[in-house]
C-alpha cells in the first residue's frame, strides 16, 4: 500500500547517493562546494523523509509507502521497500543524524574532503535501505553495503594511532555475523520454498511460514534464530560481542562515531524486532532468559567499565553498550510497554549518544585530546554555551524526567517489571551507575577551577556548532514532554509483532507442524501483552502516555 503513489522511500534512500555522484564530478580542490552539495542532498533527504510521519497511517500494522518491483525473478528476489511504525522513526533518525554529521564535519575534515563526503553519503543510503528493505536479499545487500563506507571512514579519517586496527576489526566482526545470517536467510528461503513451492525472499511471505520448532536447542527454528542472533548481536553489540565497539567508536572521526552509535547499532536491534521476533516466535520465547541475561550483563558491565575510563570518547562508547542493553531488555520483555520503550529508546539513544559524540568532537577539535585528565577542569567558565548543551545532553543520556531518555527507560522498566521484578531491579542499578559516570565526567571537565593554560583561550561554540546540537536538543524535549505522536505511530505495529510472537506457529500456515505447537501457545492466549514467562501476572493493557 502506498498512499502517495510516489516512490518516496526510494527518493529518501537514493538522494544521498545522488549527492555522492554529483560530488564525484566536482574537482577535489573545491572543498566548500563539496560540503555544500553533501549538505544539500542529505538535508533534502531529511526534508523529504519528514513527509513520512504526516502521511503515516497509525491505525494499521501493514507496510506503508510500499514499492515493489521484480528484480531477480529467477531467485524470487524483488525490490521491495516499505516501512511500518517500527522503522518509521529509525528512518527519520537516520536522515536527521546524517545531515548533522555533514554539518559537524565542516571544519573537522580538511583532508580528502571529496572522498569523505562520498563515503558519508553512500553510508546514508545503505543505512536507510536497511531500515526500509522488505526483501531479504535487498536487506542483506544494504546491510553489507553499510560496512564498506564505514570501514573507510574509520580507516582513512580516524585517529591515526589505531585506526587501521579499529577499521579492520569492525569490518571482520560485522561481516562474520552477517555471513552466518546469510546462511540463516538461505535456510528459511529453501524451507519456505519447499513447503509452499514458491521460492521468494519476500520478508512478509517468509513470515507466514511456521518454521519447525522443538524445545531442543538445535531445532531448525532455534538454529536459524541463532544465525540471525549472531549477526544482530554483534551489531547491537550485545555482551560478549561488544569488543569491536570501543575501538571503532573511539578511533572513528566524530561524524563516524555519531553515525556508528546513533544509527549503525540500531540496525542490530531493528533486526531483532523486525525478523527474530515475528519470524521465529517460539525460539524468541525459548531464548528470553538467555537474551535478558546478556542484556543485564551488558547494562551493568558497560556502566562499570565507563566508571574507569580515562578517555572521554571511550567512556561514551562503553555507555552505548550499557544503553543498548536496555533496548534489548525491553524488547525481550515481549510486552507492549517493553517493546515500545525499546524502539523509542533506540531513537533516544541515537539522539543522545550521537549528541555526546558531537560534544566530545567539539572539545577534541579544540584541544586534540580525548583524555579527561588532559582536558582539565573548569571548562564551563570559558565555554558556557558548550557546558549548557553538554548538561542537557548528559541529562538526556541519564534519563532525567522531562527529557527523552526518561520515557524510553521508564517504558522498558515497566515492561521488564511486569515480567520479572528482578530484571527491573538489575536494570535500575544500571541507571544509577549511568548517572554516576555521566555526572562524574561532567563534573571533572566542566566544573572546578580553570587551571590549564590551554583552556584559558578556548573559544565557545560558533553558530555552525550550535546548529549541529540544537535540533537534537529540540527532539530531547519533544520526546520527553510529548511522546505520544511517536508512540502512537509505533503502537499498532508493535502490537502486531507481539501478536505474531504470541500466536506463534498457530497463527501461521503450516499444517505439518501446527499440531505440535498448539499446546505451547494455548497458555498465552488471553492477552497479547501478557508476559511470556508463563506466570500470569499480566496486567490489563495499560498504555503509558
Amino acid at each position: 500500500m502506498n498512499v502517495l503513489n510516489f516512490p518516496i522511500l526510494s527518493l529518501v534512500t537514493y538522494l544521498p547517493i545522488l549527492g555522492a555522484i554529483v560530488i564525484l564530478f566536482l574537482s577535489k580542490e573545491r572543498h566548500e562546494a563539496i560540503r555544500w552539495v553533501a549538505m544539500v542532498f542529505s538535508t533534502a533527504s531529511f526534508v523529504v523523509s519528514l513527509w513520512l510521519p504526516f502521511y503515516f497511517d497509525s491505525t494499521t500494522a501493514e507496510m506503508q509507502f510500499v514499492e515493489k518491483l521484480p528484480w531477480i525473478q529467477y531467485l524470487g528476489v524483488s525490490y521491495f521497500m516499505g516501512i511500518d511504525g517500527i522503522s518509521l522513526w529509525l528512518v527519520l533518525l537516520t536522515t536527521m543524524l546524517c545531515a548533522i554529521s555533514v554539518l559537524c564535519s565542516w571544519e573537522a575534515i580538511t583532508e580528502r574532503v571529496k572522498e569523505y563526503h562520498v563515503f558519508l553519503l553512500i553510508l546514508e543510503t545503505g543505512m536507510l535501505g536497511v531500515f526500509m528493505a522488505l526483501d531479504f536479499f535487498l536487506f542483506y545487500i544494504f546491510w553489507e553495503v553499510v560496512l564498506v563506507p564505514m570501514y573507510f571512514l574509520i580507516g582513512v579519517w580516524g585517529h591515526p594511532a589505531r585506526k587501521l586496527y579499529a577499521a579492520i576489526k569492525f569490518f571482520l566482526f560485522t561481516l562474520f555475523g552477517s555471513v552466518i545470517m546469510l546462511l540463516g536467510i538461505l535456510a528459511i528461503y529453501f524451507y519456505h520454498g519447499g513447503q509452499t513451492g514458491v521460492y521468494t525472499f519476500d520478508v512478509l511471505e517468509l513470515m507466514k511460514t511456521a518454521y519447525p520448532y522443538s524445545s531442543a536447542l538445535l531445532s531448525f527454528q532455534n538454529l536459524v534464530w541463532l544465525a540471525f542472533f549472531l549477526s544482530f548481536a554483534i551489531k547491537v553489540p550485545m555482551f560478549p560481542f561488544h569488543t569491536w565497539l570501543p575501538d571503532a567508536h573511539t578511533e572513528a572521526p566524530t561524524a563516524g562515531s555519531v553515525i556508528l552509535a546513533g544509527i549503525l547499532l540500531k540496525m542490530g536491534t531493528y533486526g531483532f524486532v523486525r525478523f527474530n521476533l515475528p519470524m521465529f516466535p517460539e525460539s524468541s520465547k525459548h531464548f528470553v532468559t538467555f537474551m535478558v541475561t546478556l542484556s543485564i550483563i551488558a547494562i551493568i558491565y558497560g556502566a562499570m567499565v565507563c566508571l574507569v575510563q580515562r578517555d572521554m570518547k571511550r567512556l561514551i562508547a562503553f555507555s552505548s553498550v550499557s544503553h543498548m542493553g536496555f533496548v534489548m531488555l525491553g524488547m525481550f520483555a515481549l510486552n507492549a510497554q517493553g517493546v515500545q520503550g525499546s524502539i523509542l529508546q533506540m531513537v533516544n539513544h541515537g539522539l543522545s549518544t550521537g549528541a555526546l559524540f558531537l560534544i566530545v568532537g567539539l572539545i577534541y577539535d579544540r584541544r586534540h585530546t580525548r583524555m579527561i585528565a588532559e582536558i582539565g577542569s573548569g571548562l564551563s567558565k570559558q565555554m558556557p554555551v558548550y557546558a549548557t548543551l553538554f548538561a542537557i545532553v548528559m541529562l538526556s543520556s541519564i534519563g532525567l524526567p522531562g527529557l527523552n531518555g526518561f520515557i524510553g527507560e521508564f517504558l522498558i522498566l515497566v515492561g521488564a517489571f511486569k515480567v520479572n521484578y528482578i530484571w527491573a531491579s538489575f536494570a535500575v542499578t544500571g541507571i544509577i551507575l549511568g548517572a554516576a559516570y555521566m555526572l562524574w565526567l561532567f563534573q571533572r571537565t566542566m566544573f572546578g577551577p580553570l587551571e590549564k593554560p590551554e583552556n584559558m583561550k578556548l573559544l565557545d561554540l560558533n553558530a555552525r556548532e550550535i546548529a549541529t546540537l540544537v535540533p537534537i536538543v529540540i527532539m530531547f524535549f519533544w520526546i520527553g514532554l510529548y511522546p505520544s505522536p511517536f508512540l502512537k505511530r509505533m503502537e499498532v505495529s508493535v502490537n502486531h509483532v507481539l501478536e505474531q510472537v504470541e500466536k506463534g506457529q498457530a497463527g501461521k500456515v503450516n499444517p505439518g507442524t501446527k499440531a505440535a505447537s498448539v499446546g505451547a501457545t494455548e497458555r498465552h492466549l488471553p492477552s497479547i501483552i501478557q508476559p511470556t514467562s508463563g506466570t500470569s501476572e499480566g496486567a490489563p493493557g495499560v498504555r503509558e502516555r
Partner: protein
Amino acid sequence: MEITLPPVDLGAITPELIVTGTALVILLVDLFLPRDRKTPLAYLSLLGLVLAFAASLPLWGRARYAFKESISLDPFSLFFSSLFLLIAALTILISTNYLEREEIHRGEYYALLLFATLGMMLLAKGMDLVVLFLGLETLSISLYTLAGFMRARLRSNESALKYLLLGAFASGFLLYGIAFLYGATGTTNLKKVAVFLGKGAPLSDPFLFIGAGLLIVGFGFKVATVPFHMWAPDVYEGAPTSVTAFMIAGTKAAAFSAFLRIFLYSLAPLKPNWSAVLWVLAVLTMTLGNVVAIAQQNIKRMLAYSSIAHAGYILVAVVAGGELGGSSILFYLLAYALMNLGAFAVVILLGQKGEENLNLPDYAGVGYRHPLPALAMAIFMFSLAGIPPTAGFMGKFYVFSAAVKAGYIGLAIIGVLNSVVSVFFYLRVTVMMYMREPRAEVGPIYTSPALAAALVIAVWGTLQLGLFPGRLLELALRSIRPLLG
C-alpha cells in the same frame, strides 16, 4: 582393428577453426612486421576472437553432436566457449601495454594465446575423453611456453619448468584415469559412459573408482586444488603478469568445464562416492588458500593463493550439485574471470618495468595518486571478498545457496567463514591504497586505450553481474541442464 573416420562436420567447429586460422595468420603476418611493432597482431587476434564468437552464435539452441558424438554442441559447451573467448579477448587487451613495457616483442605470444584458447574450447566441447585430453594438452603446451616467455628472467624460467614438470605429471594421472575408466566401461565416449553406468551396471568395480580417483587427481592439479596446488603460487608469480591472469581465469574455467562434464554427467551415478572426496578437497582448498594468502606480500602471489581459495568455493558447488549447484559454477566462473582479469589489469597498470612494484607496500597511497585505477582495484577486491553489490557476492551467494539447498550446511558454514577470512587480505590492498601515505620514488604509469577498455569492461561486468544477475543466472541454468539430463 579397422579404423573408420567419423563424418567430417566442419560447421560444428567453425569457432575453433576461426581461432586456429587466426593464430596461423598471426604467425605469418608476424614475419612482415618490424621487430618492435607487434601491436597490430593484438588487434588481429581480437578480430579473430570476435569472429569466432559471432560464428558460435548460430550454434546456440540446436543441441547436437558431431564427429561421431565426440564433440558436443550443447548450451553448456557454448557457454564455456563464449566465456573462453571473453577471457582471451580481455587478456589480449591487457597484454599490449605489458608486452611493450617489458619489451617482449614477439608475435608468437598472440598465436600461443589463441592456441591455448582453442585447447580450452575443445575441453568444453569434448564429449570423448580422448578429445578432452587433446584439448588439455593443446592448452597446456601453449601455456608452458607462455609461462616462460620472459626468457631473460630467472623467475619466468622457473615458472615454465615447474609448470611443465608438474603439468606433465598431471597429464599422466589423467591419462591413467582415462585408461582405467575405459577398462571399466569399455568406452571413452562420455555419453556412452553415462549410459553404461546409468543402466544399472555394477558400481562397485574397483577400476571405476581408481579411474575416477586418478581423474580427480589430474584435474586437481589443473585447477590447483589442495593438496595438488604446490606448483600454482610459483608458476603464477613467475609467469608474465598477463599470462598469469590468463591462467588464473582461463585454465581454471577450462579444467572445470571438462571436470563438470565428466563428473556431473558421466560419473553422476557415482556421486555419493566422489562427493565425499570433493567435500574434503573443498574444505582444504578454501582454507589453505585463504590462510596462506594472508601471509603474502607479493600481490601476484596473493592473487595466486586467492585463486586457489576460489577453486575451493567452486568445489563446494560441485559437491552440492543439482541445477542450482551446476549453474552457480558457471556463474561463478564468469564472475571470477571478470574480477581477476580486472585486478590483474590494475596490477599491470601499476607495475613498473622488470616486474617491479608488485609488492603490497608499493600500493601505499595509490588511491590518491591514481584514483580511477585504485577505485577499480577496490571494486575488484571487494568483489573477490564477496561484498555486495558485486559479481563476487552474487557468485558466492549462489554457491552457498546451492550448498544449503543440498543440505551441506557444514560445508556452507566453513565456506562463509573462509570468505570472512579472505576479506582480511583483500582489504589489505585497499588499506594500502587509501590509508597509507604514498611512497616517494615511483615512476609514472603507462596506460593505453586497450588496457582502459579492459578495465571498463571488467568493472562494468563486475557491477552488472552484482546488481542485475537475473539473465545470466537463467542462461547458466539453461546451460547446465543438458548435463544433468
